[in-house]
């Protein structure tokens, strides 16, 4: 039994369906792959996207819904299966195919941008879990100079933390 339930009934996501989240995790795992350091998946990049799509990126909800569907369709057309069901090498081939397709590329570019934000940006926004990217690049933490003062309480209430 879930201790915390938010967003859709039976789902731990605020905006995505479980299938959409599965597709995105597979895509983001290629944009920033796991190696000796955690990649986009473990850093919670999809959680970042999911959170922001109910906040600042709310106007992009339709773009995401349609974009993910098109991405999966392109994967079926190109390799016969939904993106998340393909082996890694084939997934990469699909992404290169999508990147060279002028119709599909804008959504992929958006995913790249949001993945970078979710991976390298401040953990307060839902990504960069346990500051994995900052540890990776060697950003000293906690900082020696300056306070740390965030308002997580607002975020928990589902409100924009800066308003």
């Amino acid at each position, binding site marked *: 039994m879930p201790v915390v339930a938010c967003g859709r009934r039976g789902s731990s996501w605020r905006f995505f369906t479980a299938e959409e989240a599965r597709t995105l995790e597979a895509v983001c795992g290629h944009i920033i*792959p796991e190696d000796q*350091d955690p*990649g986009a998946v473990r850093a919670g990049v999809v959680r970042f996207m999911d959170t922001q799509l109910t906040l600042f990126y709310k106007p992009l909800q339709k773009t995401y819904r349609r974009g993910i569907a098109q991405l999966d369709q392109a994967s079926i057309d190109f390799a016969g299966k939904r993106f998340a069901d393909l082996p890694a090498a084939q997934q990469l081939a699909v992404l290169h195919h999508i990147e060279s397709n002028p119709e599909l590329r804008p959504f992929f570019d958006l995913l790249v*941008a949001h993945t*970078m934000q979710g991976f390298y*940006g401040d953990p307060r926004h839902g990504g960069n879990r346990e500051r994995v990217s900052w540890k990776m*690049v060697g*950003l000293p933490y906690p900082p020696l*100079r300056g306070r740390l003062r965030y308002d997580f309480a607002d975020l928990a209430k589902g409100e924009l933390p*800066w308003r």
Partner: protein
Amino acid sequence: MALKPVNAVIIGAGAGGGIVAKELAEAGLSVVLLERGKWYSPFDCRKDDLRNQRTSPLGQAFGPDDDRSPRVAVDTQGREHIVRASGPGYQNNAACVGGGTFSYGAMAWRYMEKDFRMRSTYGHVSGSTLADWPVSYQDLEPYYEKAEWEIGVSGDVSGDPFHAPRRRPLPMPPLPPNREYEILYPAAKRLGLHPFDIPMLRNSVPYNGRPACIRCRWCVGFACEVDAKCGTHNTVIPKAVATKNCEVRTECVVKEIIANERGRVTGVVYFDANDELHQQDADVVIVSCGAIESARLLLNSKSRLFPDGLGNRRDWVGRNLQGHTYTGAFGLMPMDIYDDLGPGAGIALCDYNHGNPGLVGGAMLANEFIRLPYQFVSMIPPGLPRWGKAHKDFMRNAYRRAIAVQGPTQEMPVFDSRVQVDPVVKDHWGIPVARLSGDKHPHTIETSTVMAGKAEAWLKEAGAVQTWKKLSGPGLSAGQHQAGTCRMGSDPATSVVNRYCQVHDVDNLFVIDASVHVTNGGFNPVLTIMAMAYYASDHLVKQWKGTRFA
């Protein structure tokens, strides 16, 4: 609702307006200072790398509001885009008390003598409205000094043989060098160049009742959490309020300036925070909204005598919109050089501001402000994939080894790079929004490309094992350094205001901000805006005769 009339209403509490408020209030004029944004405090330094005034994928920290204040941007292919404040093409500065000075990087440059005499120095440039200023460096020198001491500047320009004559040194010493400085200084010396400490509107020692910089990594784009950055919000505006002659009204959006049938202005109409309309009558109106919004307000202030907007009889309002073309280079050092010491920028050289063979003007070059990891994501060498394993490897290996050097190339003003009011799109208050269009002059691109080469050579000499240039595209640049839209000049046929920032055909209307800049120097413009505000205020106060002008 009509409010109690005052002597002066100032629209915009930024670098220019804040100073004018203090100068007029201290001279005994009753002043209302209207600001469309809020009055933030050091506690609003949220250290949010995705939401600040410089890097804003999740919005701007200090205004304007994304939903309420759109603009129309026309791109280089002529396509129109409705853009929001945090998006590309908006050319945003800020909307808050202090304006850009609340969250800026705070470089405090005096322009050089030639920067005021570009046309005399270099002659006509085809396709550009390049001209001399009607004021000289010597006219502004005492006011530069006043800005440096009243607002507060640290640094040491004694190592710069190119700086214009000055009477007093800066009031504060520079901050101690960081690692980049220690690497770049001897390299510049070996190249025969003249590196020195950047003058900064930042306390290096306690000054004006505020503490010194703690050298944290959240600087440009952020509020200073210890209040060590010096802007108008923590210097002149509190002084203006302390005279009891100045009232600051925040979250007030001016709709238009009212002109009467005798061709003078009588006040402004504005919306308050509750969207209620007020009329504030005043003997003098001072427009200090920044180059884009000042032009927009004048163009939106139409009346029978001024059917095309105030000051716009000759169609010069909104023209010559310019900023700075930032180019430079990145260098990857063989070793870890990241020392986590803000503000990061500390060393500059002015060897290339003038005297470049075949080029008109140039740029100051300086090392760049300290970077948070997200800002580094797009600073990749050409040919490197923007995603995948290679990009991740680069981030991991390069973040602590990279130095960036860049500079603001002086732009050649272009008549058709401009601010208009859009015929269709309106903001939250129903006021027609600014419509931005135009390109950079090709010579600006040419100069900026040479500047990038100079930056790259400096980094190579410093021992970088890999270097790559950061170049500029042809699109309009305005943004934080926006200028030029209400040009100052002696001839009313080719300018909007006279040498005292007074609109040519409306003697009680002034524009006091970077709008009046004829050219924008190869430097960050803020100290020149401040000096000009002191200079124009000085004249205004001297001409003031009780309730009107002589």
